[in-house]
């Protein structure tokens, strides 16, 4: 009897949880007929926001990959004093509200901020520019990429690196031919998660870069700007995000699958610490 009750309670809890998580997503597609929904994507607000989002996300993501990959390699392969502290600091932004990131960016790069005078002397004013959006997006998505990339490089067997070195490979070749290809599945997964986080960035951007249509108004900011004026546009952007999200998750799954076949059966891939 009590066993039966337990099954019932668990099933009920699961049903509520699933319904709660899925209902808002389903609602986006049910509120407005699908045809009308995609017609909204022709509006100038949407097109401007899409251009700003794609441009800033790609540039920010490229910067995160370019600086984050060597950083992750260094942290994963070297043992140095204070390494634990560095790892903790990298994860700090993950537990901060994005609004705090926005305030911090203003305090650092704003006109009256830490580097305000230096930037002013160079004739650079970041306020309400796409450069500010890029900084905000890069700041918020960096920890996601770094965390996954460090775990990916740490899972590469030291003996393989050692073997490459005894075979005459210098640091560039070890990185390019051994570490990078073997860490690729993990790097790809980390990259997908970071990109998704960057595309959805809201709090830091609105505080540090504002919400100017065609300049700093990204898709999430456009949803916020539109939901009082034209709710259908907000819904349409929401629907687009759901689709992009599904695609990213599928890519993620694909990388997870690639990881399981790319390593030797004799050396199970180390699971990430994150």
């Amino acid at each position, binding site marked *: 009897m009590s066993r039966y009750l337990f099954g019932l309670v668990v099933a009920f809890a699961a049903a509520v949880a699933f319904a709660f998580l899925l209902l808002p997503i389903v609602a986006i597609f049910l509120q407005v007929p699908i045809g009308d929904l995609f017609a909204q994507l022709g509006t100038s607000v949407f097109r401007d926001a899409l251009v700003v989002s794609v441009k800033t996300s790609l540039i920010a993501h490229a910067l995160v990959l370019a600086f984050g990959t060597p950083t992750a390699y260094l942290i994963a392969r070297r043992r140095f004093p204070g390494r634990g502290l560095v790892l903790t600091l990298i994860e700090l932004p993950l537990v901060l509200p994005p609004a705090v990131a926005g305030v911090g960016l203003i305090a650092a790069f704003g006109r009256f901020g830490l580097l305000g005078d230096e930037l002013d002397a160079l004739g650079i004013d970041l306020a309400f520019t796409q450069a500010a959006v890029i900084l905000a997006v890069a700041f918020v998505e960096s920890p996601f990429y770094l965390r996954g990339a460090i775990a990916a490089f740490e899972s590469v067997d030291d003996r393989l690196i050692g*073997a490459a*070195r005894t075979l005459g490979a210098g640091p560039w070749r070890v990185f390019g*031919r051994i570490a990078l290809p073997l860490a690729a599945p993990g790097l790809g997964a980390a990259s997908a998660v970071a990109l998704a986080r960057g595309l959805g960035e809201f709090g830091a951007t609105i505080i540090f870069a504002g919400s100017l249509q065609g300049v700093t108004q990204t898709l999430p900011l456009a949803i916020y700007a539109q939901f009082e004026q034209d709710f259908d546009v907000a819904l349409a952007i929401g629907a687009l995000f759901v689709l992009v999200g599904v695609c990213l998750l599928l890519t993620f799954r694909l990388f997870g699958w690639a990881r399981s076949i*790319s390593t030797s*059966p*004799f050396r199970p891939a180390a699971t990430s610490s994150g």
Partner: protein
Amino acid sequence: MGSLHLDVAVPTRSYELRLALDVAAETVALVGPSGAGKTTALDAVAGLARPRAGRISCEDDVWFDRERRVDWRPEQRSVGYVFQEYALFPHLSVERNVTFAGGRADGLLERLRIAHLARAKPPALSGGERQRVALARALARSPRVLLLDEPLAALDPHTRTGVRVELHDLLRELRLPTLLVTHDFEDAAALADRVGVLVEGRLRQLGTPGDLLAAPSDPFVASFAGANLLAGEATSGPNELTEVRLALGGTIYSADDARGPVTVSIFPWDVTLEEQVTQESAMNHLPGEIVSLVPVGNRVRVRLDRLTAEVTGASVERLALRPGGRVVATFKATQTRLL
């Protein structure tokens, strides 16, 4: 002919490895229990572990000299390293693994009989095939020193014997200074010109496999070489022999001189089995009960309650040996070593 000299102190997790060794164009095996610092020794030669002090040189090149602050990077040293479990690059084909150091693979692949596997990737290969790929890769750079870390350990017993013969021939042909790490005395005896026994970071004994069998320097070396070990108390005996009262009961005699607590070492192949005690003064007799009979090649290992004997199949039949039966183990006082 090339030669390798090392005299180093390398810190490891548990203790410091201290090893001084000259290796000419020969194979020197380092044997010992796991964690004795064997792999650390190879890593130090390859440049993958940094000694705290000492010197490593190959012919006229000094690879490492702490005092003169010389430390060549692994990629600058000329070392062919076959890693434990081989460490093949899993994402590269056999051919690309072998040509990773540059040059062509054809000749080596032919020579090691893996030409047909050139396009295969390591995870798809059998243990014996991986071993050959690892050897080919290590040799591709024409190294001046060869390092082999447990090259046979990952193989099943069936493949192992064949691969051991091949490796033996290859090592003789290459005539490179070779350091071979193994935990198996038989492998060491089959492949190496000299064997060094490494225990807790120290070289306990270095000699030919025959030296180690004939005159093990301490109980560990003796048991590693397969000897029976019995604890006892030595006193002066008749006919200039040493009398040993065994801790487990019984008295035996040895030609070695010792007093006080000793460890008696007898090799299984020096023990014969009899139905009853025959009177012969230079012979030791230990009655015992047979625990098990295990065939080893053309011989049979007979485990008694106190020691193990290795006898021919003919003796087993003649004496009708079976588990539970009682026999007398007989061995000469001159083959009874005291350690």
